[in-house]
């Protein structure tokens, strides 16, 4: 059974407002995002990119600061704002910094987000953003391995057939050593990204 629109809105609000357990801890490293106390390994999975080709996530992002966001192109608010802010900051960063960053957008609405549509939508924000699609359940599994709640499809509107998708509003930052270290909730501003992204590349992490 699909949840109602109200439930989805509630879910979105909850996901935006409440961090996962890991994210509730303090941040003593000077990041504007929420440092994960026990960093998570970058998951290994292969999905389809915007050219319709397989994309081995761990392999293709190895050695890069990788920002992962789960959303959908029909999203009315959170996804376009998040991607627009990331795109704006990527254009402002020094090339020596921005070329060491990969931004990966994984759709939570693979039924509507075809590779072509995903590519077209992402190019509105930045030409180098990576878009991935695949099986809905597989994408939810991937989200859970990253500590994020699974997406939920809303009830289609009886007139238009369109529907909302409840999804996490966090961007997960994996440092070049392949560990997910910082979470960024919706509300992270461009100035925060501009502060944190170079720092994520420069900082040395002592995981002992």
């Amino acid at each position: 059974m699909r949840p109602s629109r109200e439930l989805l809105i509630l879910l979105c609000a909850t996901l935006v407002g409440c961090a996962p357990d890991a994210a509730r801890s303090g941040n003593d490293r000077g990041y504007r995002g929420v440092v994960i106390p026990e960093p998570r390994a970058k998951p290994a999975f292969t999905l389809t990119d915007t050219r319709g080709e397989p994309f081995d996530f761990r392999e293709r992002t190895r050695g890069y600061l990788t920002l992962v966001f789960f959303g959908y192109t029909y999203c009315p608010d959170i996804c376009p704002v998040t991607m627009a802010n990331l795109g704006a900051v990527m254009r402002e960063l020094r090339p020596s910094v921005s070329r060491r960053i990969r931004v990966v957008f994984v759709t939570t609405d693979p039924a509507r987000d075809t590779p072509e549509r995903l590519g077209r939508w992402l190019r509105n924000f930045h030409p180098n953003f990576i878009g991935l699609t695949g099986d809905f359940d597989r994408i939810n599994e991937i989200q859970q391995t990253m500590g994020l709640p699974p997406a939920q499809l809303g009830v289609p509107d009886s007139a238009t057939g369109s529907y909302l998708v409840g999804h996490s509003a966090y961007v997960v930052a994996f440092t070049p050593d392949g560990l997910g270290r910082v979470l960024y909730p919706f509300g992270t501003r461009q100035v925060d990204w501009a502060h944190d992204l170079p720092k994520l590349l420069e900082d040395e992490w002592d995981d002992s």
Partner: protein
Amino acid sequence: MTWWCSAQGVAWSWAWQAYPGVWLMVAAVGGGYAWALRRLQPRRFAGDDRPAAKGEMALFALGLLVLWIAADWPVGALAAGYLLSVRTLQFLLFVLVAPPLMLLGTPRWLLRRLLRGRVPFRIARALTRPLAPLVVYNVVLIVAHLPPVVDGLGTSQLGSFAVDLAMIVSGFVFWWPALGRLPELNPMSYPARIGYLLLSVFVPTVPASFFTFARYPIYGLYELAPRVHDIGAVADQQVAGLLMKLAGGFILFGTMSVMFFRWHRQEEQTEIMEKETVT
């Protein structure tokens, strides 16, 4: 229930939305004006008092229309929660366009009637001197553009209403000495009025410069608002800066030019009268 435009955080839609608070304000001001013309207009006029001319009524109606457009959907809604450029346009309409039209559209006898008490008259006289209005205008301008005010008050209807009202009131206060409607309050000479308007050009350049040259969006409210037609937050901010500087400057310098020519005409008339007296 929504009664005044504020940031809602929902995707922008061109579907019309009602804001009864705005209608109430427009109805109260417009109704009050019509009632005053009908009920309070004296039978005999003394001094420079005249019955309300059609031109005056048209100016007042135009000013009220501008106020309504600026406060109601879609301008008010876009300004409150989506686009800083529209908020800047709204600011210009609230402060620099509607108040002078409404002041010029109020007949002198009505102004005198409104200022009949001792306290209102004293306030009006104090506001005819340039210092207090300049301070009020500039303080409201700066405070209304502080990020904690925009981000903090913009999300509540009451907060949004308070900021809008402060802007409108500051507009009336600002234009009162510049228009010098009542001779008994010893209004400034035309050169002094031009100087007053010139002084008021400088402070708006502060937010305008920040808007135009900031690398990143200044206000979280507009940066994190759902996008309207894919307009980026920084591009929107730059348009806001240009609007504040160019449109605001155009209005103020335009008014200064009109005052300059009035001053020139006044001087010519004085010269002609002096010559006639001599001959």
